[in-house]
């Protein structure tokens, strides 16, 4: 290896000095908990994290045998299948409109972004009352008796709608910043060639926006697969539809915190982690085919 000059050494020392706080934070707050979770998933954990005994893969055998694990994983996927596509498409359309120089765009941007700055618990509570079967605003406006959040067949859709509503603003802001990076020349050239707005959208905007879209889909997919607060806040634990809606993280919370069975909870999270890793791997492969970087 080549010997470093004094200046290079100096630079290296400073570089390390600057990244040390971040590294420390990562190690303490991320890396250590990850390895601790892996370890706990191999243990029968004692009360309050004391007296763990190593049991090998016993927790995994139980978790993978339980029907509720697979049901909750399927529930989580169903939630992601609503939140991600709709959250992305609606946000993209809104972003295209709000990227134009029209009167009042900033007001609309604010309105669409508002759900992001509301406390999730407050959002969930208001939706809970909107959805209430007997006294809710929705059913009373439309004079129907739909059990929005207690009919097992549709409760997952109702929860997904809240998810979409909450995330649109965030996705939209990212899309707007992506749109502003597309050089205006393309659109001028397309105008001269006589392309309609719709064709411009499909042949210029979508391909050139694909890096942003990919980023949003990737992060939102992970976000949706780790959803917890919506189910927790909107659905009472005696709700008959809960089993058809509860996510993996909800199940984790139930076991790890309510029942105090950390080892079993850690195992559930590890299963979810593996699933997310697989999804991310597929996404990375797809990136090469679908995303257009200029």
């Amino acid at each position, binding site marked *: 290896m080549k010997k470093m000059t004094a200046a290079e050494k100096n630079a290296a020392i400073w570089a390390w000095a600057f990244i040390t706080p971040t590294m420390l934070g990562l190690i303490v707050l991320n890396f250590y908990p990850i390895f601790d979770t892996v370890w706990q998933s191999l243990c029968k954990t004692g009360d*309050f994290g004391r007296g763990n005994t190593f049991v090998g893969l016993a927790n995994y055998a139980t978790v993978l045998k339980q029907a509720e694990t697979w049901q909750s994983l399927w529930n989580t996927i169903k939630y992601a299948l609503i939140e991600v596509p709709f959250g992305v498409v609606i946000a993209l359309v809104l972003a295209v409109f709000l990227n134009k120089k029209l009167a009042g765009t900033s007001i609309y941007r604010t309105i669409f972004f508002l759900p992001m700055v509301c406390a999730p618990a407050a959002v969930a509570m208001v939706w809970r009352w909107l959805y209430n079967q007997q006294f809710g605003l929705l059913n009373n406006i439309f004079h129907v008796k739909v059990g929005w959040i207690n009919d097992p067949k549709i409760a997952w859709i109702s929860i997904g709608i809240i998810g979409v509503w909450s995330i649109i603003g965030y996705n939209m802001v990212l899309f707007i910043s992506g749109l502003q990076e597309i050089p205006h020349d393309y659109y001028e050239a397309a105008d001269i060639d006589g392309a309609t707005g719709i064709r411009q959208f499909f042949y210029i905007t979508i391909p050139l926006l694909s890096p942003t879209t990919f980023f949003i889909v990737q992060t939102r997919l992970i976000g949706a697969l780790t959803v917890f607060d919506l189910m927790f806040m909107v659905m009472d634990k*005696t709700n008959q539809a809960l089993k058809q809606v509860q996510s993996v993280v909800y199940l984790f919370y139930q076991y790890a915190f309510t029942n105090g069975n950390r080892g079993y909870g850690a195992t559930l999270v590890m299963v979810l982690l593996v699933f997310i890793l697989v999804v991310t791997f597929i996404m990375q492969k797809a990136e090469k085919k679908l995303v257009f970087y200029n």
Partner: protein
Amino acid sequence: MNTRKFLALVMSLIMAASLVACGGGGGGTSGGGESADNNAGGGGGSSAGLQVAIWDNNQLAGLKEIADAWSAESGVPVTINVITWDSYWTLLSSGASGGTMPDVFWMHSNTAQMYMENDLLLNLDEYIANDDSISLDNYYPGIVSLYSSNGSQYALPKDHDTIALLYNQALFDKYGVEAPTDDWSWDNVYEAAKAITEAGSADNVYGFAMNTSNNQDGWYNFVYDYGAQVITDDHKGTTIGSDEGKAGMEMLRKILTVSAPQPVVAETGTDSLFMSNLCAMITQGSWMINAFYTADGHDNYKWALLPYGDANGNGMCDPGERQSSYNGLGWAASAATSNPDAAYSLISYFCNEAGQVKQAELGVTMAAIPGISDAFSEAFPGMDVSAFNRIEEEGMLFFRPYTRNTTVWEDKIQQDAFLAAWLNPADEATMAMACDNAQAIIDAAIAAE
């Protein structure tokens, strides 16, 4: 129709507003954790202050008054943080793992055993021996033994609670049904609920409401009225699947056929239904009195003696047929508190006879010492709450069922056993099967403890 729309809107707004209030409480909590850390660093001392955690907002005002009186004597400031029931246990168990528990806090039968066995609570034996104002013989024995482990006392009894029947006089008058009396059995409740639910169907009014989660304040009492036990006296089993247990739940099943349907109860909540004048009767515990006393329609709210289960069918209340569960919280201190003397001094102040009488007078809860809760009946001018005291003379009390890790089976029988029966109350077999399932769930959970 318009009034219903308006009601829906108002409910949404109220929920939003109350959440803002809750958020403020949460902020206070995290601040509390920080100052507790400071105490540890400063090595204690009289100015350090005590962090107290409780879960019931209804009791905050009264307890604060007592704590302030103690602060005036001792010079140690006290901060009481209210954390909702679910978060309370998450916070406490995380604090137990991480070593940052509040100084003084409530213990509950669900988890006390686990906290005591892991030496997380301050051993109070020596303090009690040196304290003239405390004698363990004075308290309800069930509560004292709940908070002792291996012969040592880890918490002092804070209170006791009982259950009564709450009804809305205005709804009984409106539908021409006679109001509950002390002689009512659950069969009378069935008749009245049936009459009101049928007459009120056009207005969405129900005669009765109970969810699977209303256990201590609800269906547990049915099981004991008919001679079964949710958890046996040795805390090692259950007889809920016995014929007696099934008979009790069968009585309840009959009432459920004329009550608010489970989906309504799960979404809206029994208390909200009652306070919205949409339900004529619920069962509730004495710890909830203040919530109903301060509600808008409280003039119409009346408490009756908890009805009895006519197990032998002779039309009168025989011994053992009227049972109310009782539970007692305990005041405990963290084993790691930086100021154990002050912590015990505060606990003793709350739990000695003077503190218990004051607690009853202020209407916080009934005392953990038998016979001194009369003042509690007078604490709510305009509302007769003597039903909670009278049940001790006219019925029997059984201690809230608990095992080492109660939450595991308690949640599971609500969701996996009885939910099906609640959803389909018309079918007798479903309820009987639910009792069998509950028996299996509890046996399995105890075996795993």
